[in-house]
């Protein structure tokens, strides 16, 4: 009853004189309006809560320091403080943009550190085994060239010197090795992706 009858100006003046319950009445009276005002600008519950708190911290400090001089205009003054803090919040966020994981999309499902997890490692080792088995099925001349090129990292010049065939023959064998590998993959219905 008393709280309804007292004006903001009276409550502010009582609070400055040391009457703590006056602040409680002021906050209760204006909390919904101020909270909605902040939320309508930031659209985030946690940020709204922070800005609301910072606003009243500023209000409390200003009143206690005796710097308040806007008699009768308490709410517009508080709203202006909140407004300035909202601007500060957006300025800060522009300098340090924050990615908010909301809804279905999670940035961490796209980003990874490049290392494989346990399942990935298993799949990877399975792929290596499958390829080794497929290579074994190739004709010997193609298999030799492919192993020298892919596993031993030799140039076609070195391969031709080692196998005693021309570079063109080595290139041709490599080409057929790859064609045959593709055929074998299709034949065995193997999926070689991690």
């Amino acid at each position, binding site marked *: 009853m008393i709280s309804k009858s007292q004006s903001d100006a009276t409550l502010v003046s009582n609070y400055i004189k040391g009457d*703590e319950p006056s*602040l*409680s009445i002021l*906050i*209760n009276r204006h*909390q*919904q309006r101020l*909270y*909605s005002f902040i*939320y309508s600008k930031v659209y985030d519950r946690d940020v*709204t*809560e922070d800005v*609301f*708190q910072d606003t*009243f*911290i500023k209000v*409390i*400090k200003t009143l*206690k*320091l*005796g710097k308040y001089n806007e008699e009768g205009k308490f709410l517009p003054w508080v709203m202006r403080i909140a407004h300035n803090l909202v601007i500060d919040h957006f300025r800060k966020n522009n300098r340090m943009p924050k990615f908010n994981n909301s809804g279905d999309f999670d940035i961490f499902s796209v980003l990874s550190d490049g290392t494989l997890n346990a399942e990935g490692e298993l799949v990877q080792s399975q792929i290596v085994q499958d390829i080794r088995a497929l290579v074994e099925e190739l004709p010997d001349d193609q298999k030799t060239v492919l192993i020298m090129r892919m596993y031993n990292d030799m140039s076609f010049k070195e391969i031709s010197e080692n196998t005693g065939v021309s570079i063109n023959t080595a290139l041709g064998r490599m080409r057929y090795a790859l064609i045959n590998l593709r055929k074998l993959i299709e034949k065995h219905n193997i999926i070689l992706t991690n």
Partner: protein
Amino acid sequence: MAKLYTQKPSNSNTFKPKTETINFLLNYSKALKVSTYKGLKFESILN
């Protein structure tokens, strides 16, 4: 079964700060003391 959209949930409490926030502010207010010394004002938290 068809959904009923007629009854809207009450949102009277949704646009209010948490009780913790209010309590923090009231406690902060009680703890904050301003002392004046030779024309200078000093803030202190008495917690």
